[in-house]
């Protein structure tokens, strides 16, 4: 059913550290790799090696430049995937019941055999987290690797979303954001984790940790610096004569 549950037992989600992310796109590739051959239909590409390649991805990394009022600009890499919102508009708009939010862990999923590919859920998502697969005509979205996190055939270390397992910088964390004592909740509390577009009222479960402030370059780096100013500004002697002569030519 596309009515949202009143509450979920757990709120599984991701915490993404914008301070640590180096923008390598490894999470994008591992996500595509895992999800194209596991849960649901593959993530197709169109014209992959041609002039106009395009394809379905569940996770994409943007890069933004932030220019403060004073000081140098900062480049921030910004991975974006489904935020598994508590008030997910993509679920309630679905006419067929294909889109749903799980009561047990809060994961938002699409039952692809019920999806008619009308695209309305993607229209209702402010984050661009849903993409209609052109080849299959059904909506694709992040499953929080539901086929990994409970998969007892995998070693325990691998029972996290593929993007989290892959991230070489440790910028992605996975856990229960509904439990205030979980590692991810503590991390969010400590680093003042934030919501994206809070004005949309979607109450995202995923949180983003803001970048730490950068070191500022001091005005005066050494008390002896003024004494180290260049001494000879104008060339003298032979070089001075050469300079003047060449100037006259």
């Amino acid at each position, binding site marked *: *059913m*596309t*009515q*949202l549950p009143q509450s979920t037992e757990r709120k599984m989600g991701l915490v993404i550290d*914008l301070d640590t992310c180096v923008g390598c*796109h490894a999470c994008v590739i591992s996500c595509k790799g895992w999800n194209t051959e596991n849960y649901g239909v593959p993530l197709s590409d169109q014209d992959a090696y041609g002039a*106009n*390649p*395009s*394809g*379905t*991805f569940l996770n*994409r990394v*943007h*890069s*933004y*430049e*932030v220019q*403060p009022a004073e000081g140098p*600009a*900062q480049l921030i890499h*910004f991975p*974006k995937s489904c935020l598994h919102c508590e008030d997910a*508009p993509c679920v*309630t*708009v*679905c*006419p*067929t*019941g294909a889109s749903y939010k799980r009561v047990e862990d809060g994961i938002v999923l699409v039952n692809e055999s019920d*999806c*008619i*590919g*009308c*695209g*309305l859920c*993607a*229209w*209702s*998502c*402010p*984050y*661009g987290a849903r*993409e209609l*697969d*052109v080849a*299959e*005509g*059904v*909506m694709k979205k992040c499953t929080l690797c539901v086929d990994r996190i409970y998969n007892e055939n995998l070693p325990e270390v691998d029972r996290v979303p593929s993007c989290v397992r892959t991230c070489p910088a440790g910028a992605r964390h996975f856990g229960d954001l509904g439990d205030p004592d979980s590692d991810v909740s503590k991390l969010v509390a400590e680093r003042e984790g934030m*919501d*994206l*577009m*809070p*004005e*949309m*009222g979607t109450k995202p479960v995923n949180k*983003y940790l*803001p*970048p730490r402030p950068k070191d500022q370059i001091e005005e005066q780096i050494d008390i002896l610096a003024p004494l180290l100013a260049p001494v000879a500004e104008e060339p003298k002697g032979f070089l001075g004569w050469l300079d003047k002569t060449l100037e006259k030519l």
Partner: protein
Amino acid sequence: MHPAPSVIIFTTCSGLGFGLLFFLGLGQPAVTGFVAFVFYVIAYALAVGGLLASTFHLGHPERAWKAFSQWKSSWLSREGICAVAALIVMALYALGAVFLHSHWTVLGWIGALLSLATVFTTSMIYTQLKTVPRWNMNLTPAMFLSFSLAGGALLAGAEALAPWLLAIAGAVQLAYWAQGDGAFARAGTTLGSATGLGDRGNVRAFEPPHTGTNYLLREFVHVVGRKHAQKLRVISLGLAFALPLLLILIPVSGLVVKHIFALLAVLSHLTGVVVSRWLFFAQAEHVVGLYYGKR
């Protein structure tokens, strides 16, 4: 938003068709027999034709029947139910008018109400979307309903009501544009709030996540044709309301001339509404464009 022909045809034709069914249900005009048959053929061709066009953009049209199940939360589901209910009730009413020369008044009223409800639910599919501030306004259902009633009155030949309804629809259209032009800024969503980085400084999209295009850019970040928006607004207003108003208000003698003028008025109205609907989609800005630095 991408102005897909299927949704433009759908909202235009079905709006007009259900508008005509609304008036027929109220017994306006109170026709029977062959004349009634012609009226109902036109109404059903527009309403059903529009609904069929809307299935063209589905990834899996064969599963469309599943869309009737989620009426508790989904406006799209409610629209499907209202449309089918309106078509069934009005079909029974039409049977009475065409073959039995009788008007079952209460059934007609129910059918009229359901027809109007269909147009309303269609408009709510767009109105509910907070992600598209230009649609997320009370004037959106007002526009869909006033257009449908004006077009329906024009088709039904409701001579007394049609000029008023056309004028009202034109006024609602102007108000919709006036309010819609500032809607995105008023909604307050910026790249700063989208990334959560706005309080640190001026945020600029530095590098997109992919070099090519994708579903999101194709569907939500349509920018082609915006430069002609003002001209198209004038054309739309002229064709949809001004010209039909002129054509039905000019006093003419003779039934044939009158019918030709009425036909021209309907065709002009239809074309104008198509232009308005194209603008409705093409000018609608989805907040996801912010992430791509396209707003």
